[in-house]
């Protein structure tokens, strides 16, 4: 039986950075991944948005750390990950949304975010060709941005390997053995591994992994649809988030990446529950109507590819991070609600400090994102 300090289930947006930071702290780390290589779960479906603009202190803190890390990825480690500081823009067309966002703005500023309400004209400067009809203004946070999830995963994989992490690809977790309130080992279809700490970072499969340890995790994946266009000359900087909903969709967002391609993603309404990621005929006509409505200049751009990805959702739209009560050596980093990519690097660093350094400076995060919270709230910017 192989023995490690920590075993991480999942080599995705969350598991990869976490494995690196733990290994770097001298831990002997193993990552078990059922796919053939890293980032094959939802990382490959992520569109790359990175924002600290959230509505709660925990996520704001984690994402501020993520941005800080990824911004410096090339300088610190030599990996080009297409970081682009384009900011996040929430253009507002409805009075109720204006009121809500302006209320939130006060909180956001209190949490230390650089964000402000800007006028329709300022929005037009940032996003030439945006629909000005009914535009009331919006919030803009200039230090948010985007990066390539694929390149980021690739960078963390190599960093983690070089730091000594062992990856077991093509291995599916079958069961855990438990003694009292402690996990002893994990059995895959190929081996049994024992460890001091076991981390569930299984993304869309977090609930199943949880169930194997006797935990009922409220993580329910639903699928969102995304697409990418041909590249055109760079002409707008921010990620544009349209918070409105219609009878087929809730919010949607899009941005122009470093290569000039426009990447977009929509939240279907009603939700498409489950793990099915096959495309249906409804998506393209719906998303193009919404994009061209808010940004008519995009009507002539050609769509190159579409895909679906999973949002492992929790009832309130916030992640679950921390130790479950009944299993002292298990750690949860699950239910990222479609934000695994932006939360992953910061979260990885934080969890590594909690586990390896036994720090308690992040207790406010563990409290807020506890499995035992009421799940009554509703993340406004999910």
């Amino acid at each position, binding site marked *: 039986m192989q023995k490690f300090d920590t075993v991480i289930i999942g080599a995705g947006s969350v598991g990869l950075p976490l494995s690196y930071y733990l290994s770097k702290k001298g831990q002997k780390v193993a990552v078990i991944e059922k*796919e*053939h*290589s890293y*980032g*094959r779960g939802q990382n*490959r479906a992520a569109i790359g948005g990175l924002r600290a603009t959230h509505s709660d202190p925990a996520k704001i803190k984690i994402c501020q750390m993520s941005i800080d890390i990824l911004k410096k990825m090339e300088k610190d480690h030599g990996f080009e990950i297409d970081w682009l500081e384009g900011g996040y823009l929430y253009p507002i067309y409805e009075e109720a949304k204006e009121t809500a966002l302006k209320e939130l703005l006060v909180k956001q500023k209190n949490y230390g975010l650089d964000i402000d309400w800007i006028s329709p004209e300022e929005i037009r400067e940032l996003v*030439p*060709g945006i*629909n000005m009809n009914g535009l009331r203004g919006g919030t803009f946070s200039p230090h948010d941005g985007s990066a*390539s999830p*694929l*390149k980021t995963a*690739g960078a963390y*994989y*190599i960093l983690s*390997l070089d730091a000594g992490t062992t990856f077991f*690809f093509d291995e599916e977790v079958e069961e855990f053995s438990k003694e009292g309130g402690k996990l002893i080992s994990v059995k895959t279809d190929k081996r049994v591994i024992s460890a001091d700490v076991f981390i569930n970072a299984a993304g869309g499969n977090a609930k199943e992994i949880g169930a194997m340890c006797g935990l009922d995790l409220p993580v329910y994946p639903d699928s969102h649809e995304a697409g990418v*266009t*041909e*590249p*055109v*000359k760079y*002409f707008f900087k921010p990620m544009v988030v349209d918070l409105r909903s219609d009878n087929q969709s809730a919010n949607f967002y899009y941005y122009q990446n470093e*290569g*000039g391609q426009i990447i977009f993603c929509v939240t279907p309404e009603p939700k498409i529950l489950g793990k*099915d990621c*096959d*495309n*249906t*005929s*409804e998506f*393209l*006509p*719906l998303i*193009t*109507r919404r*994009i*061209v*409505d808010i940004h*008519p*200049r*995009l*009507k*002539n*751009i*050609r*769509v*190159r*590819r*579409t*895909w679906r990805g999973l949002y492992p959702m929790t009832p309130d739209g916030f992640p679950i991070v921390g130790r479950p009560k009944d299993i002292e050596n298990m750690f949860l980093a699950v239910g990222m609600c479609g934000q695994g990519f932006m939360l992953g690097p910061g979260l990885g660093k934080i969890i590594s400090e909690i586990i390896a350094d036994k720090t308690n400076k992040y207790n406010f995060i563990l409290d807020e994102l506890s499995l035992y919270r009421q799940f009554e709230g509703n993340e406004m910017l999910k």
Partner: protein
Amino acid sequence: MKRITAHPVLEVKARQEVDFTFDGLPVKGLEGEPVSSALFANGIKQFSIHKKDDAPQGIFCANGQCSQCSVIIDGMPLKSCVTPLRAGMDVRTLVHIPELPHDDEPCFLSRLETLKTDVVVIGGGPSGLTSAIELAKLGFDVTIVEDKEKLGGKLLLQTHKFFGSQEDSFAGTRGYEIAELLEKQIREFPNVTVLYETSVVGVYKDKKIGVYKNNGKYSIIDFEGLVISAGAREKSLVFPGNDLPGVYGAGAFQTLVNRDLVKASERVFIIGSGNVGLIAAYHALQAGISVVGIVDIMEKVSGYKVHADKIKRMGVPVYLNTTVLAAFGKEKIEKVTVAEVDDKWNPILTTARTYETDTLLIAAGLTPVDEFYDQALEFGFKAVKTGDADEIAEASSAMFGGRIAGLKMAKMLGKEIEIDRSFYEKAEILKSKPGIVFEPVPVIIKQNLTPVFQCFQEIPCNPCTTVCPKGCISLVGKFGNIMDTPTYTLDECTGCGLCVAVCPGLAVSLAKRIDEASAEVILPHEYLLSFAPGDMINVTDIDGNILEKAEVKHIRLNKKYRTHLVTVKMSLNNASKAIGIRVQDESVTKPCAETLLPELPDNGIVCRCERVTVKELVDFIKKFRVRDVNQLKQIRAGMGACGSKTCSVLYPRIFKQAGVDYYDVTGGTVRPVTVEVPMNSLIEGEVE
């Protein structure tokens, strides 16, 4: 203008000339022809400048698949090979990436059209058409989705006579004529709808497909069954200079030359001795284009022997055990260097030689376009695949296979029919690979005209037997079917010459003895005449060796088969060996005095869209321990407009070069959309 104004087989019709501009300069083209062909006719072969390294880009597939021919037309980036030319168009080189027009008017909303049909046939080529006919006969409502403006697929490019049998696959008839025959049959069925210039955008799980109708409007089709007859795409080859304008697929060449009658080249060099490469050479010669040579890394010609013999007779050398080392040129290809290979396929540099050429054709084989089929199966739809989408083979076999596919689909949809077992046998025969080559048997020339066959390889072909009015010719051999070779078995030849005119391999002559020293021989000739009775012409044997200069006595044209029958007087000794008339002078096939060698053997392009080289890929695979094709997107390989259609075929070799067994690598995923579609055509919305 680089147009073909006279052609031995194709009719050159007068078409409306229109003015347009390229990069602001006035040029002329033909109304409705693809913009790419109009540009080629003006000698323009560079269409874009790549964003990565400012490299010039030319055409590659001429088939709407690869996007390499994109230009800016009236402000919009468009694939020039599928955009019809109109008067006054403003065509511009696409430099790096296009700028989106500053058009901020709201978009007109309309409801998307949803069509309903029993069976969608994807691809109106030989197999798609025959399957549609079978389904239509049985009463099904059929919709053919065809991305070109005419039905027929690759039949439209094929000016040569077909192999196979006359009863099952129109043998002896030329490809483009078969296309017309099939289109006529299709038109007779009111229950068949044809959507022209329409590409499939995606196959969706809710049992619908999305199509880009008439290259203008997105529509949804509701169906019960899918026939995937989408054909094949040409394989790319990797060598330094493979990205230069002027290096492209043999199919693209046939499109330019045979469909659009553009004299795309003066001197062409061909890689690959399969039927596609061999026929391309033949088509080039017919269009008045010199063929410098053909190379194949294999030790044997991979196409039909009669095809290879045919072009050797015309004066084209076929170099076996030989590979291409590199192509050279500044803004387009100017030279190519080839070398022989050892038994491990490594080039022997001492044998390297360089040829001057303006066009290098890649005829390295085809891969099936079957991703729609795989998707349909994954979603549990009723689907069949046929033609090249199923298995790469001759169009004769595709036509027969299409009939079977149509019947299979009918059964899947609940029709109680039996498929004749003999159909499967025939289909197998028609797609047979060439068999053994026999030694020629000595022939004694008689007093009366009798046929002499230079047809020694087992291939599925028999029109000489069915065309003979006296039934003098039979196939004899071990198969007992059309794979056997022809023999003159009944001595009642009238000298009508039909066997000479019909033979797709031009491998039959008629000969008679005049006196002890001389003979009269009737030879097939499919070229514009450059000689007249009384002239002396070079007559060759099967391998292209010149036998003697013989006097032309008589020339007649068989109109049905569009083949000249040339009667020559020659020595009796050579009469049984005579089979061809040399058309190309030896001097065009001579190498240059100086041999050029590539500086960086690993800078051949693998991903053409994003210009990713072998070296970049191999280094990346090693550094990032790549075991998943998806990871190659980190260096943009496979991220281009074509959707990884061209590069994915090359990946096994690249991974091998990086020391990774491709069995241990996860392949890429095929997702909609398969062709790029502008947002304004996709929108579904209520009219307000």
